């Protein structure tokens, strides 16, 4: 039960505070102080400039031998603020890097046997170009990504997927793609290389998880604009406070004004924004899904319509026999035995399930076929299969084909089973007629078996406001029955690549975002058209190229988890933005009375936290502002808690937690820091 095991596999999780990651991350957070790198993040860039300016004032004061303790403390905490934000980003990147390193270890230098006409030349793997043809024998490592053009082989892909069971790769069809770095276990294959050195799947994977290619996603850009706008607003509010303070008779120092500015601008979200994005991709990665861009993960959160293939996603891949309905005058045991014979050599899952059902009905295992029996395999032309032995022919297959066969044999094609055939089809099953020579024996009821818990999953999706559409090649009758049983919202029956494409386009016309999974080459156009396309790693190279995510476990239900991660990513951004802005209320009440304590002692009425001294008030606010970034790093990396519920319920909870909480928490935090500073006599 390979599929079952994959389903149960838990995501690889890494502890949030990993010593191996923290060390280099601390080093990186200093490297990131480079102003050119900081300028990518306007909010934190302002903080860095502020820290630099206060440091200059500190140096001036020290040179003049003026008391500089307060300036030193402010300046130091401003630097900490920048470093903490850098640390958050470095930690998120570090987690990706750890994953990349693990991947890189699988990337061993190897040689390849390049096919030149009818000769082989041995070349280095990294000299292979797109279009080159190579031959790989058992035990060798596949030197580059490519398509099998001749032969078939079992391949160990555990380096990429972590799945130890080997898979079959063969030319033609949907299992022709091979990945560089995987190992051929048996047989030999000829492969056309499809990626230049440095562009292979593994290379892209490493680059992606390392964040080297990271570009800001659309929502991240929009949010950055909002944060920059707010920063400008507060810059104006604080800069104009200098002339106002002169008018009011207590000129403020630049250090104090910078402290106020840094407290007001949205440093919490500004400092954690990129970490949230990187961590989102990382969480997708931990579920063994490779996102080609952060944009794809973000889009997943927006998905309105989910297209799911019936087979493999909603139902187990194979149908199973659940009952034999006998024709008049035939005993159940007799029918079971005939069904048993018909399927003994049928190695398809359906065939095996018929055998199993017959055995449960009392057919003994010893009833083997007599020697000399010939198995008649299923063909698309005859649409039936069966067995011939000692003058007896047994066939099972599509009802009209079997009727025609019986008629051909000179038998009576009249049967009282028509209503049963109809009933089974209506219930979403597949009826197979069973016949012996000129006689119709009965109907085998093959049933699609739903994967466990799918109903719950669809209910969860519905609660999130996502519509699920089942895609199937079945006729509308069967499709409707399975759709009803599994609880999907809609279905597309008798689907072809074209109707699938039309459906996606229609949904997108209505403004909806569509996600789908696919693995075949004929899925590629639809995967490319869909806003979120997840290709199965077992699929073709074309499908993988067209998709914007690849599921290394080839588990189509994974799409649901990816959607949840996307939503969580956006929620985390919104929650921290709200928290960050709400924090400003308390900071005003801490800093403003402190600033004008001398000119207007009456302003102490606004000091509702009763902070001990003006200096302690300003310092406490700055320290709180820096520490809150560190405190929220785990939240940024993990994402806010997410339960699938309607938008209004989610909103209410988050507004209470991060909006109201954002107003209250800093009042408490600043007060505590002030008390500690007072106790330690630091101000």
């Amino acid at each position, binding site marked *: 039960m390979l599929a079952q095991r994959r389903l149960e596999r838990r995501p690889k999780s890494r502890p949030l505070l990993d010593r191996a990651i923290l060390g280099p991350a601390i080093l990186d957070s200093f490297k990131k102080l480079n102003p050119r790198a900081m300028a990518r993040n306007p909010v934190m860039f302002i903080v860095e400039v502020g820290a630099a300016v206060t440091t200059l004032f500190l140096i001036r004061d020290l040179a003049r031998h003026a008391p500089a303790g307060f300036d030193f403390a402010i300046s130091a905490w401003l630097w900490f603020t920048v470093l903490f934000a850098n640390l958050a980003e470095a930690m998120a990147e570090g987690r990706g890097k750890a994953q990349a390193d693990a991947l890189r270890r699988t990337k061993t230098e190897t040689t390849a046997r390049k096919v030149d006409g009818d000769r082989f030349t041995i070349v280095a793997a990294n000299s292979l170009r797109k279009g080159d043809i190579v031959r790989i024998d058992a035990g060798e490592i596949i030197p580059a990504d490519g398509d099998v053009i001749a032969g078939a082989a079992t391949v160990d892909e555990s380096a990429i997927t972590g799945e130890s069971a080997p898979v079959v790769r063969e030319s033609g069809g949907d299992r022709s793609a091979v990945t560089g770095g995987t190992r051929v276990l048996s047989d030999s294959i000829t492969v056309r290389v499809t990626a230049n050195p440095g562009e292979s799947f593994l290379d892209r994977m490493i680059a992606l998880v390392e964040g080297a290619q990271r570009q800001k996603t659309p929502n991240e850009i929009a*949010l950055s604009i909002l944060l920059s706008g707010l920063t400008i607003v507060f810059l104006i509010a604080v800069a104009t406070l200098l002339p*106002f303070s002169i008018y009011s008779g207590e000129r403020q120092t630049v250090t104090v004004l910078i402290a106020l500015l840094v407290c007001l601008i949205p440093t919490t979200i500004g400092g954690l924004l990129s970490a949230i994005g990187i961590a989102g991709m990382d969480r997708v990665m931990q579920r063994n899904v490779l996102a080609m861009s952060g944009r794809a993960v973000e889009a997943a959160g927006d998905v309105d319509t989910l297209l799911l293939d019936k087979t493999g996603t909603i139902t187990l891949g194979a149908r199973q026999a659940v009952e034999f309905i006998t024709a008049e005058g035939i005993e159940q045991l007799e029918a079971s035995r005939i069904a048993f014979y018909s399927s003994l050599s049928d190695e398809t899952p359906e065939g095996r399930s018929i055998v199993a059902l017959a055995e449960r009905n009392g057919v003994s295992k010893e009833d083997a076929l007599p020697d000399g029996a010939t198995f008649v395999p299923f063909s698309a032309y005859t649409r039936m299969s069966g067995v011939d032995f000692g003058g007896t022919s047994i066939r099972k297959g599509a009802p009209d084909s079997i009727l025609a066969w019986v008629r051909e044999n000179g038998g009576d094609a009249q049967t009282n089973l028509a209503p049963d055939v109809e009933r089974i089809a209506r219930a979403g099953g597949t009826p197979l007629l069973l016949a012996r020579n000129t006689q119709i024996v009965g109907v085998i009821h093959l049933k699609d078996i739903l994967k466990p818990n799918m109903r719950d999953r669809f209910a969860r999706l519905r609660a999130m406001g996502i519509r699920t559409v089942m895609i199937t090649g079945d006729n509308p009758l069967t499709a409707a029955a399975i759709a009803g049983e599994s609880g999907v919202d809609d279905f597309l029956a008798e689907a072809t690549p074209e109707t699938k494409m039309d459906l996606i386009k229609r949904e997108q016309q209505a403004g909806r975002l569509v996600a789908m999974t696919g693995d075949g080459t004929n899925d590629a156009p639809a995967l490319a058209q869909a806003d979120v396309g997840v290709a199965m790693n077992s699929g073709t190279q074309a499908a993988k190229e067209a998709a914007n995510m690849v599921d290394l476990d080839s588990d189509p239900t994974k799409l649901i988890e990816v959607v949840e991660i996307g939503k969580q990513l956006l*929620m985390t951004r919104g929650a921290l933005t*709200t928290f960050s802005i709400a924090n*400003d209320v308390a900071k005003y009440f801490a800093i403003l009375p402190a600033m004008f304590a001398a000119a207007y002692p*009456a302003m102490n009425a606004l000091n509702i936290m009763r902070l001990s001294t003006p200096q302690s008030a300003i310092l406490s606010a700055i320290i709180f502002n820096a520490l809150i970034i560190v405190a929220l790093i785990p939240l940024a990396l993990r994402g806010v808690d997410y339960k699938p519920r309607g*938008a209004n319920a989610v909103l209410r909870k988050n507004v209470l937690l991060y909006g109201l909480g954002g107003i209250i928490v800093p009042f408490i935090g600043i007060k505590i820091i002030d008390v500690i500073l007072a106790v330690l006599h630091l101000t």
Partner: protein
Amino acid sequence: MTTAGWLQFAAFFIIIIALTKPLGSYMARVFEGERTWLSPVFAPVERFIYRLSGVRADEEMPWHVYALAMLAFSAVSLAWIYLVLRTQQWLPFNPQHFPNLAPDLAWNTAISFTTNTNWQFYSGESTMSYFSQMAALAWHNFVSAGVGIAISVAVIRGVARTTTKTIGNFWVDLTRCCLYLLLPICVIGTLVLVMQGVPQNFNAYHTVKTVEGAAQTITGGPMASQEVIKELGTNGGGFVNANSASPNENPTPFSNLFEMVMIFLIGASLTYMYGKMVKDTRQGWAIFAAMAIVFVAGFCIAYAFEGAGNPLIHQLGVNGPNMEGKECRLGVGASALFATVTTDTSCGAANSSHDSFMPLGGLVPLVNMQLGEVIFGGVGSGLYGMIVFVVLTVFIAGLMVGRTPEFLGKKIEKREVQFAILAILVTPVLVLIPSAIASVKHDALATLGNAGPHGLSEILYAFSSTNANNGSAFGGLGSNFFWNIATGVNMFFGRFAVAIPALALAGALAGKKAVAPGIGTFTTNSTIFVVLLVGTILIVGALTFFPADALGPIVEHLLMLQGKTF
């Protein structure tokens, strides 16, 4: 605080709620180009105007063409008003023989009326001829209100429409607004006010002997007609300097109530019209509710402080509310309500002296204006300012439901955020930067009436008022070259620097696809949204001004409690 005060507030608010839906529905019909019961009268006039001016009524404009038409119209009307004021001594209807205005005052006044601000650095009764009052000022009261409403209609179309480039025709919107909306209400309103005793004539001023034997000049003029549009168009420029405190402009308690209703009428009805046009009236009521919450809160604070009176005077044994600067006929309740109403909207008419309010009572009008006049707001400008806040709220809070923020099914992305932020930036830039300059500039401080925190309040009030196109004055501020030029520039950008990003935002929204709402999408008509919208307005709008206001009215209040006044 008195029962009568609260009853008047209740009566006022109930009338507004009752009128919002009928007038809002009527306005929706007008601006959707549907037939109304006034069409038989005005449709021929409308067609005639289009034929005369060569406007093709069925031609729709993209946002930038709309904005250019609006700017062109404003530029021409600005030039017209400047010309009239500079030449009034040679023009007719000048029985008092007033001379031409000085260039800087004419420039200030021209911008003031073009931008629907009606900031007045002059006294109408001793400066303006009747011709200037009617042809320049009253006419502008109409068209500047019309321009504001037209922009808001265009912005609503941008919100309502999908996958289109156009947001209406500026000339049609302006014409229909003046004809179908402003004119009929003004005709009725003028008659009501004349009935209450407001003058409407072309006579020279009367000089009468009072019972005490002194000579008193009683102004006349076409006052009632100008009074209605002053309120209805949230213009606020008084015919006389005393504005609505004058017994001629505002003779009775009924006229006082009537004038306040006129001020809120269109701003409130626009919310319903918005709901109608986006095909979800709950959206409109949600915005109405957010506005109403801030309005009621503001009134309660203002009334509480004015009603409580000055503790320093109480110590002298004189108890009672703060009556300084208030018209005895109207009293504290009506004054606090009028002050709140006139500054929630960008009206700026006044029936009391805001300068004489208690520090925190006066803070209410100040903060109202600093929020960007979105509490019902200026006709049109209030609604499009509010839509900018809605977009911002949707963007911040919408993320918290786990989707890219959506406003009525349209994704709020980079461009929309950009334009919203541009519009939001205008108020802090135009209020704080000039105030900061004025607070340390010698010639600015020279005409300041008071020192200390109260002086700073006067500076902040002047720039808050001109930026918000309100036009009410805190008093205590004399006109000179600095103030004429600075407030003029301020009014100009306060109007157009918000209107153009708002139109751009509308253009961006109009081009978007809309997704049908589901349970996973963020709704903008729920209670929680109203709370969030109010929160965003208060935190983003008001927090910016907290430091400045703290050094003005707030510290003044705290010092007053310690017995120190300015």
